[in-house]
């Protein structure tokens, strides 16, 4: 166990890592589909989403490194931090499962991303607002794509319906973490840097409920909030992140400073 820092030295640095790491880790997960998509067109689509997310992560982690001011760039943050230093939520590090599982994870994330990025376009931090404006266009397409698949698979065959329902029930428990508000979030809200997660949560629930109903799926009900105040945002990750990082970081760590 890593001791919790009592007071964050740099709340903005922490917050930018959360934003960047969500996208870096989910982008890596989506890249695992490359060459394994259900059809050629979807293979290209998932790779596109992966690249969009990694591109967003690049911008956010670069800004995080500048804010930290210790000479770390986006590559240093992506490849040279350990699992306990990552600030992504649990949802994005969950394994892909079958295609329907990936779709559900992506959809739950995409709705959150659109709402959050929309709020961040009005951030008092110009650099972050700019990144959000660029990323929002991509996120709007992502949710169109994953939302369409939610309807097609949920309201599809008996098998696709059963699989997507199971994935929804399984992944649902990771969604409250998206809206947890801690000291860092409160500092971001009061500085006008980030929107209030509580406001996003209401909108998120409305949109997600609507799509679940139209997909003829069963709403999993109220999800319990995280039991511990020390969650993935503080570095307490599931076992899956370590395996993901081992694969993601191996080349950079085997050949430090290499360029290609």
């Amino acid at each position, binding site marked *: 166990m890593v001791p919790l820092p009592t007071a964050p030295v740099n709340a903005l640095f922490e917050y930018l890592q959360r934003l960047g790491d969500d996208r870096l880790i989910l982008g890596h997960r989506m890249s695992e589909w490359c060459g394994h998509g259900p059809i050629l067109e979807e293979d290209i*689509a998932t790779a596109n989403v992966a690249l969009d997310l990694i591109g967003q992560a690049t911008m956010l982690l670069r800004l995080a490194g500048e804010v930290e001011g210790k000479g770390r760039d986006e590559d240093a943050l992506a490849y040279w931090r350990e699992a306990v230093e990552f600030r992504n939520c649990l949802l994005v590090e969950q394994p892909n499962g079958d295609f329907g599982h990936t779709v559900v994870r992506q959809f739950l994330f995409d709705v959150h991303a*659109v*709402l959050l990025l929309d709020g961040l376009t009005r951030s008092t931090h110009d650099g972050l607002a700019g990144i959000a404006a660029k990323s929002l266009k991509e996120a*709007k397409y992502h*949710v169109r*794509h994953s*939302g*369409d698949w939610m*309807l*097609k698979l949920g309201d599809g065959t008996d098998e696709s319906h059963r699989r997507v329902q199971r994935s929804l029930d399984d992944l649902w428990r990771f969604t409250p973490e998206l809206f947890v508000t801690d000291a860092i979030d409160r500092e971001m809200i009061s500085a006008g840097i980030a929107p209030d997660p509580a406001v996003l949560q209401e909108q998120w629930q409305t949109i997600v409920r609507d799509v679940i109903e139209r997909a003829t799926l069963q709403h999993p009900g109220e999800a319990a909030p995280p039991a511990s105040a020390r969650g993935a945002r503080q570095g307490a990750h599931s076992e899956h992140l370590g395996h993901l990082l081992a694969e993601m970081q191996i080349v950079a760590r085997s050949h430090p400073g290499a360029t290609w």
Partner: protein
Amino acid sequence: MSTNIEVAAQAATIAADGQWPLWEVFTQSEQAAPHEHAGSLHAVDAEQAIQNARDVYARRGGVISLWVVPAGAITASSASDAGPLFDPGADKAYRHPQFYKAPRGVRVF
């Protein structure tokens, strides 16, 4: 705010060979330019065809508009018709404007 989760629900029809229906994709590169055939792809409905066309044919930019058309909706001329359909046009120079001399006093561009 718009989240674009509007999706046109259309019945999916799977072809006898198990492939999803084929669509022809046309892309437009700029205002007033014609939509040109870019290629084809598989999709179960029009919304998915647009999404796949975006991902396959527009992801590197240079596209401002997409058309997707069910391949079955296109009627094509057959190769055996090529003679009567196209050969007569090959030797009729008077159908080209260049065949005619511009009258004196008309500026030739």
